[in-house]
């Protein structure tokens, strides 16, 4: 089984539009949306039906006022400033359990928290594994790992050979969770100075975890000089530039119509994404 993850450093580079188009072009695959903070892929793939499950993860401390003798030890040991006036601030609590371990009168309990939901959806393009972290929760990395696990399990069961993931933004915990052990990362960037800066950081993460990378420059004509900079950088880093996609409002139109752009209208953008997909397939083999 092969796993492809599409990343961009920051969001907004058109990553999800490209993944949705891959969904329309690829066969025998499962899709996974690893952006559990703001999953958007399902908006374009429009699931027919889906299963919803709870994701319980992490713990929150809670103090029983009746038992508490107000000795203050829990407040002293907590390094996250989560204990004030003998009660726990659930948002600040890191769930480390230090207070629970030290309380001399067992007034503190650790309670599991409902951190989010995970879904398995069927769409006209195949199965989509995705999830939603509840507001202000931790453990997005674990939920990402679960989304990938669910996708892999189903792929195995159904005999499907490919998982395509839409990755989260950034370079931290959820990104590392979405990247570890995949076969190929497609990095979607745009020719802005901040895009280049973000690209360099995400290339660093791929290197660090030994994942081969390909680059796609989206909206390549908004600044051709920067596009050349990106190409130069990629040559130096020995990373292939798999496609350059011009700016076209058709991408936003397709988004508003909630369709993959390759199905929405034929044209240069659709053509470039088709080529990109063939390139990616070649690299995966």
């Amino acid at each position, binding site marked *: 089984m092969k796993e492809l993850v599409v990343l*961009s*450093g*920051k*969001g*907004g*580079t058109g990553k*999800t539009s490209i993944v949705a188009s891959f969904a329309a072009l690829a066969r025998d695959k499962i899709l996974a949306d690893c952006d559990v*903070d*703001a999953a*958007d892929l399902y*908006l374009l793939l429009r699931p027919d039906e889906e299963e919803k499950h709870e994701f319980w993860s992490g*713990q929150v401390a809670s103090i029983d006022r009746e038992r508490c003798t107000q000795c203050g030890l829990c407040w002293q*040991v907590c*390094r996250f400033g989560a204990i004030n006036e003998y009660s726990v601030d659930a*948002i600040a609590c*890191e*769930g*480390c*359990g*230090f207070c629970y*371990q*030290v309380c001399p009168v067992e007034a503190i309990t650790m309670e599991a928290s409902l951190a989010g939901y995970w879904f398995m959806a069927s769409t006209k393009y195949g199965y989509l594994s995705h999830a*939603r*972290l*509840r*507001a*202000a*929760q*931790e453990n*997005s*990395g674990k939920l990402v790992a679960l989304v990938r696990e669910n996708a892999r399990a189903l792929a195995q069961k159904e005999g499907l050979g490919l998982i395509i993931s839409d990755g*989260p*933004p*950034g*370079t*931290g*915990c*959820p*990104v*590392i969770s979405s990247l570890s052990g995949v076969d190929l990362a497609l990095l979607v960037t*745009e*020719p*802005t*100075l*901040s*895009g280049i*800066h*973000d690209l360099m*950081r995400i290339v*660093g*993460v791929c290197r*660090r*975890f030994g994942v081969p990378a390909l680059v796609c420059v989206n909206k390549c004509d*908004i*600044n051709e000089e*920067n596009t050349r900079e990106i190409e130069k950088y990629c040559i130096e880093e020995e990373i292939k530039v798999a496609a350059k996609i011009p700016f076209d409002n058709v991408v*936003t139109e397709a*988004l*508003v119509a*909630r369709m993959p752009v390759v199905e929405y209208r034929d044209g240069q953008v659709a053509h470039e994404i088709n080529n990109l997909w063939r390139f990616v397939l070649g690299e995966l083999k």
Partner: protein
Amino acid sequence: MIVSVASGKGGTGKTLVATSLALSLDNNAEKVELLDCDVEEPNAHIFLDLKLTKSWNVCVPVPEINELKCTHCGRCADVCAFNALAVLEKKVLVFPELCHGCGACSYLCPETAIVERDREIGVVEGGASGNMLFFQGKLTIGEMMAPPIIKATKKHIDKDRMVFIDVPPGTSCPVVEAISGSDFCLLVTEPTPFGLNDLALAMGVVRELQIPCGVVLNRSGTENSAVEDYCRQEDIPVLLKIPLDMEIARAYSRGIPLVRGIPSWREPFRQLFRDIRQRISDN
């Protein structure tokens, strides 16, 4: 006064709004401070004409086991809520990337076999430009935990200044760390189905933290959008609209802040600031 600039998803123009808002006040008597707390991809500095002259390392404590004292009793691994320790028959394994630095293991080890040492996971850098102070946090590549860097960056907040915070995208712990303590939160979004979905998610966080907020609609067209309908329904003010415009996109691509590249935008941003200040004092 602290105003944070956030969005459910990256790439909506958060940095454009934060930098332009800060720079629109630069010439005033107002003393300004801008913090880039998007520590996984800090890029506000690209838009600012300044040198980062100062730097502070950010470290988290991790346990170190004194194998001479350790009896391999297993207590430390039992208390660690993050599976950062594994006790084998003759050795204790530490997984530093998983450690949250809570200190429970060293405190509770019956043999005092654990000491903590500092591990660097990133830096905070700072500089100044005219009246404005600037700080950014940067997570080291390959490190997982953004919140300690955000916390360290926010230590530089000067309450006497007008502080703007560029918040990381999303809705989880780094976002909460960056936004909490703000007097107002600006949510930047765009008029697409993604923008609507992500705005609703970001609203969840802002409501949870009970911070007053308003919306900046970026890349807006002339037509009324579902995002505006949503804002009306939810009673969230749309404080500024920035149109989808090639000239704006080009200035952005070259790292030129909007209020410098197209100076006619200075006034709308000042107005935005006055609106925010009014709303904070009404609150």
